[in-house]
């Protein structure tokens, strides 16, 4: 039903295609059987079963791991798997995700925004504030905090800001810290995943970044 393997210092949890309730119970039992062993280890979700879970169910599984003191090292993209095995399954990009979040004020230090879709902030995101979104993060102002786009594993997510100076950017399972000597650049920028990890470049409206990039 589920397998747990140690890969590159991560605990790889491989889900087979089973109903969510069964997977949840199996994972719970597996962890409970040797709680001390799993505590503090980094978890990556994987397997063909993932594509069958909704975002809420994925979040519940992640929360279960967090409850046992494990560290989420993110979820592997279900897209890759589904392309090879079942080409009929629509890629997640085309599924309209409900629950985009719009914020019409500054997000201040210590505040955390969590969205099941994309997040659009009409204001600044201050230092040590956190934005976590299942899809894109768009800040029409300064992005100075922590941005985590594609938190459920969607690697085509982007982070856009008019002034992009975050202390940390995460996209799907990649992490990138800000350089030590950060200079503010007076033009909008966009962060995305390419072959070397997370890249940032000047936003150019004539280039097709983001969703359509991967097609």
């Amino acid at each position, binding site marked *: 039903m589920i397998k747990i393997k140690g890969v590159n210092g991560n605990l790889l949890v491989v889900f087979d295609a089973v109903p969510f309730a069964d997977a949840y119970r199996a994972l719970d039992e597996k962890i409970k059987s040797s709680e001390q062993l799993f505590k503090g280890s980094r978890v990556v979700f994987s397997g063909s079963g993932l594509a069958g879970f909704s975002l809420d169910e994925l979040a519940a599984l992640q929360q279960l791991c967090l409850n046992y003191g494990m560290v989420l090292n993110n979820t592997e993209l279900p897209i890759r798997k589904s392309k090879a095995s079942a080409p009929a399954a629509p890629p997640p990009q085309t599924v309209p995700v409900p629950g985009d979040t719009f914020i019409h004020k500054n997000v201040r*230090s*210590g505040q955390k925004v969590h969205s099941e879709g994309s997040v659009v902030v009409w204001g*600044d995101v201050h*230092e040590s504030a956190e934005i976590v979104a299942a899809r894109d993060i768009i800040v029409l102002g300064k992005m100075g905090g922590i941005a985590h786009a594609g938190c459920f594993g969607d690697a085509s997510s982007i982070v856009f800001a008019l002034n992009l100076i975050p202390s940390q950017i995460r996209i799907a399972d990649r992490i990138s810290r800000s350089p030590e000597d950060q200079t503010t650049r007076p033009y909008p920028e966009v962060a995305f995943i390419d072959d070397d990890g997370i890249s940032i470049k000047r936003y150019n409206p004539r280039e097709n970044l983001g969703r359509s990039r991967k097609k």
Partner: protein
Amino acid sequence: MDKKNSECHVIVVTSGKGGVGKTTTVANVSTSLAKMGYRVAVMDLDIGLKKLDLILGLENRVIYDIVQVIEGECTLKQALVRDKRFPELHMLPAAQTRNKDEITPEQVKDLCSQMRPDFDFVLIDCPAGIEQGFRNAIAAADQALVVTNPEVSAVRDADRIIGMLESAGFQDIKLIVNRIRPDMVRHGDMLSIEDLIEHLCIDLLGVVPEDRNVVVSTNRGEPIILNDRSSAALAFNNIARRIIGEEVEFPTFQDDSFWDRLRGLGRNLFSGR
């Protein structure tokens, strides 16, 4: 004397970070308001680490404290300490031997509603931090003053506090920048007022310059506003006047002309300080 206004403003003074000048601000602004003839109460909610009585010079006159009022050991009237120098100023002292989680936000709210009919202003001295003490202090207030220093650590905490106040439903949040040093700002060694406002995005209520006299008067237990020569005193008086709705211009610290410096030199020579 009767109170001047029909309504009562309950104002919490908070900052997040410790040592930025919350208690000094409460002491001086409340004294200034009382001097103008308003009936003012100050409430020290830094239970376990009280300082307001010390700074106001009322330590010896404290008999009962706020926890005893809440627990019903004495009445509110008995616990309120009246300042002899300013008959309109009343202080509700904090307990030193107690703990911040021995009272609840509801109890503070209840206490404030008992005070509202008798006072024009109730100023609440909030403890540092964002725990129970902070929640107690903001529960009853309808306005908030955030005190910060022009340094990154204080600004970060102020940002956090403003966020928490906003999510607690505060509409009226104003900023006081304390201990600014105009000479350092001029040389670019200190965050300027403009930087702070741009970062925190709230209205400015006052700017208090760094002033050695504050330490002296704090140690003596005399509010600095009694010192006519002090620049901090002027700033605190201005803050009090802005609170009652007067339009007071912000002094520009940027002035650095030859004549200003000469005047400053003369003032220093003849003031004897």
